[in-house]
């Protein structure tokens, strides 16, 4: 083993693969940590000793550990080691090699994944191994996967009798794996007519199911876009809908929230996973306070002049943008995704929902519900509703309208800040972040009906889903244009949006 490691450490990248083949052939599953470390790009070579070592980051410090024994090597410095580099080709090889080794792993899920990984690379050796393992496999799922692999092998053997192959094809037709579909597509060009028709039938059967899942997938995309729109516009629904203030700086409140996330992660670089939980209240406070400040300094002097709040807040948005540009530079800032939010929830081979979007969807709904409760059940909410319906009356009843205005605006802005935390997980954190959402937000609020939170919810999801279902046929740009034109026409038909306020009070 050791001479091979020396070779590995000193080889040029293009010579590495044959060495890895030899390492794989010469060893058992004990080589797994080596391959894994190499795959992650953390394998280093100690030239002086002819040994390899794994590097990892613990609380910001570089630590070296022996790959096989996991013992920490404190004697090594950065200069003593050279990185063993990998490229995509090697990564592909490593992944397959690990799968081959893991076919006999203890955990059934690892075994199943290994089998699925190998579906696309069914060479004779692998098939032989699988055939040996199949009869003794106890876990149902793993056995199914192995059966599928063997069926694929059978189906692709042109030398076998068509009846055997057709039976194998039928077995394959219950699978949604893309490798299965690719194989079946190849089989439709087979010499045997019976095989061709069986493959076609199987493909059709699979296609039906795939289409069903594709629909679910698209629906999820729509809901996810809707949740982003909801988050971006819900703060506006309060400042614009309840207070009648056209806050052009709303987008910048979102931006502040996103930058707050960045700063929080900067302060606690080793606790990225928890940073979101700190960032949410922090962003709420930062944007909320900024909102209160803007309300007290500018907006409270513009009561009853809604169109002029537009101009003043536009000025504010310019100032805020330039402010972050000056403080944080015009470059985008890096916000990391916590590990629990990365990746996706794989329901089956054709349907997987990305976790971050799933969380954001849930988060948007949660924010919405909390907001509704705040407005319906708390005394602040009561005051807010009273002021929005009849300012003078509320004043006469002893409501401190100034205070309520400041709090309402702060609440709306704070929620925009929270939206910024969510958006920082999806898109750029830069000075232009807010700009890209402001128009969409206004569309959502107007479409839903000003002053109606439920309307905002329905409008956000309607627009999100509509956009996503239009996109495949029209392309992203045309879909956006069509949605805008639709809103323009819709407002002509129903000038007060989906859920208008009715009766004399609305006049």
């Amino acid at each position, binding site marked *: 083993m050791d001479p091979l490691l020396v070779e590995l450490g000193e080889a040029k990248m293009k010579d590495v693969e044959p060495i890895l083949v030899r390492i794989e052939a010469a060893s058992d599953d004990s080589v797994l940590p080596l391959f894994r470390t190499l795959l992650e790009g953390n394998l280093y070579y100690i030239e002086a000793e002819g040994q390899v070592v794994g590097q990892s980051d613990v609380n910001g410090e570089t630590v070296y550990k022996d790959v096989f024994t996991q013992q920490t090597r404190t004697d090594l410095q950065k200069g003593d080691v050279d990185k063993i580099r990998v490229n995509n080709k090697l990564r592909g090889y490593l992944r397959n090699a690990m799968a081959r080794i893991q076919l006999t792993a203890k955990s059934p899920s690892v075994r199943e994944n290994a089998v699925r990984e190998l579906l696309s690379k069914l060479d004779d050796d692998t098939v032989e191994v699988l055939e040996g393992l199949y009869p003794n496999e106890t876990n149902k799922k793993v056995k199914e996967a192995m059966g599928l692999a063997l069926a694929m092998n059978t189906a692709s053997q042109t030398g076998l009798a068509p009846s055997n192959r057709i039976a194998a094809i039928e077995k394959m037709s219950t699978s949604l794996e893309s490798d299965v579909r690719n194989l079946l597509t190849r089989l439709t060009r087979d010499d045997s007519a019976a095989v061709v028709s069986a493959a076609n039938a199987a493909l059709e059967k699979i296609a039906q199911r795939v289409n069903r899942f594709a629909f679910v997938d698209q629906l999820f995309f729509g809901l996810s876009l809707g949740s982003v729109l909801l988050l971006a516009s819900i703060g506006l629904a309060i400042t*614009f809908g309840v207070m*009648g203030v*056209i806050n*052009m700086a709303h987008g910048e409140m979102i931006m502040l929230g996103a930058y707050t996330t960045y700063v929080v992660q900067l302060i606690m670089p080793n606790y990225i996973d928890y940073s979101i939980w700190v960032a949410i209240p922090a962003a709420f406070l930062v944007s909320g306070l900024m909102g209160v400040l803007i309300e007290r300094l*500018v907006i409270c*002097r*513009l009561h009853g*002049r*809604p*169109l*002029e709040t*537009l*101009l*003043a807040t*536009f*000025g*504010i*948005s*310019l*100032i805020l*943008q*330039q*402010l972050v*540009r*000056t403080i944080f530079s015009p470059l985008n800032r890096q916000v990391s995704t916590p590990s629990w939010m990365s990746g996706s929830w794989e329901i089956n081979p054709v349907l997987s929902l990305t976790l971050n979007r799933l969380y954001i969807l849930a988060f948007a709904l949660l924010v919405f519900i909390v907001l509704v409760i705040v407005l319906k059940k708390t005394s602040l909410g009561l005051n807010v509703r009273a002021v929005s319906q009849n300012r003078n009356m509320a004043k006469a009843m002893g409501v401190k309208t100034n205070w309520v205005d400041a709090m309402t605006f702060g609440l709306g802005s704070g929620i925009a800040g929270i939206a910024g935390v969510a958006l920082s997980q999806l898109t750029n954190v830069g000075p232009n972040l807010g*700009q890209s959402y402001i*128009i969409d937000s*206004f*569309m959502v609020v*107007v479409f839903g009906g*000003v002053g109606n939170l439920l309307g905002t919810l329905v409008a956000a999801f309607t627009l999100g889903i509509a956009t996503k279902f239009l996109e495949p046929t029209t392309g992203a*740009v*045309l879909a*956006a*244009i069509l949605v*805008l*034109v639709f*809103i*323009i*026409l819709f*407002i*002509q*038909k129903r*000038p*007060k949006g989906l859920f208008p306020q009715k009766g004399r009070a609305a006049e």
Partner: protein
Amino acid sequence: MKRLTAWFSEGRSTGKHTLPFVVILLSVTILASAANLLLPADSVFYVSTYTITLLGKYLCYAMLALAVDIIWGYCGILSLGHGAFFALGGYAMGMYLMRQIGDRGVYGNPLLPDFMVFLDWKELPWFWLGMDQFWFAMLMAVLVPGLLAFVFGWLAFRSRVTGVYLSIMTQALTYALLLAFFRNEMGFGGNNGLTDFKEILGFSLQADSTRVALFLITAILLAVVFVVSQKILSSRLGKVVLAIRDSESRSRFIGYRTDRYKVWLFVYSAVIAGIAGALYVPQVGIINPGEFSPINSIEMVIWVAVGGRGTLIGAVIGALLVNYAKTRFTAIMPDAWLFALGAMFVLVTLYLPKGLMGLYGQLKAKRNSVMNKESQA
């Protein structure tokens, strides 16, 4: 007495700035042009072509501000989409200038503009036909914005979409057009827009004399638009328009079909914006979808707010002043000019709700209040 009353009610106060404005505008323009063409470049009074082009651009913006003011200051319709009409007028002119290039484009194709050649288009799209004729292109420069304003206005005003809703819808309109013109498939040159113009009516666009001529034409047209708008707004129609701004429902109850008045005024305003756009393009040398961006349209509103809405002269002064400030600021403090610009908007809305003209009016009113009282008695 009667005749006096009639005269009073027709040529009232709003018109008093017209004559001085036209005189100053035209004399400054003519002086600047003469200084550019006749004086040697090293003379102290020489006006560089850069300045001429810059002034020409400002005047286009002033005309655009006039259009915004007519609809916002006088009728209370806050349009956040006037950039769309401006840009459409600009595109009509741009298409004409594009066709004028003829076979002098980089690919030497006599019919197709360069961007169509490298997108591999085989023939001219239908909407480019006829654009090689100056009169037709100019007709389109007013017709297309006018038509769009008519359709949009007819739909919106008839359904009584007002106030904030209308503003947001106009914003949506210009945003939708922005996205559409960005698409290369649309046949308007995508993000790059139309540029690299050579000639207008056979005159080279790079010649000083052409630039000066364009500048003069812009000034004259601005004066014409100013006078015509002044006349319209001081007619009874102008009073109806003001009435609609103050109380639209009352105007309806005394028998005015306010939707038609609003559509009419909206179209008029859009046509002016279109003309401004058509004049703008040959002077700055490029038209691209950026002109449709909602931010631009908001900026126009701000020019008017700074100058003072509800007075035509205010709109012009606002446009000139803000743009001049912008030019200066970007040169003097490139890193901080957005602070200055933003602060200016906030301060003007807070402390000068009627803009600079309002401030001027207040100062004058204070001084004259005593005199007025005497004359009334």
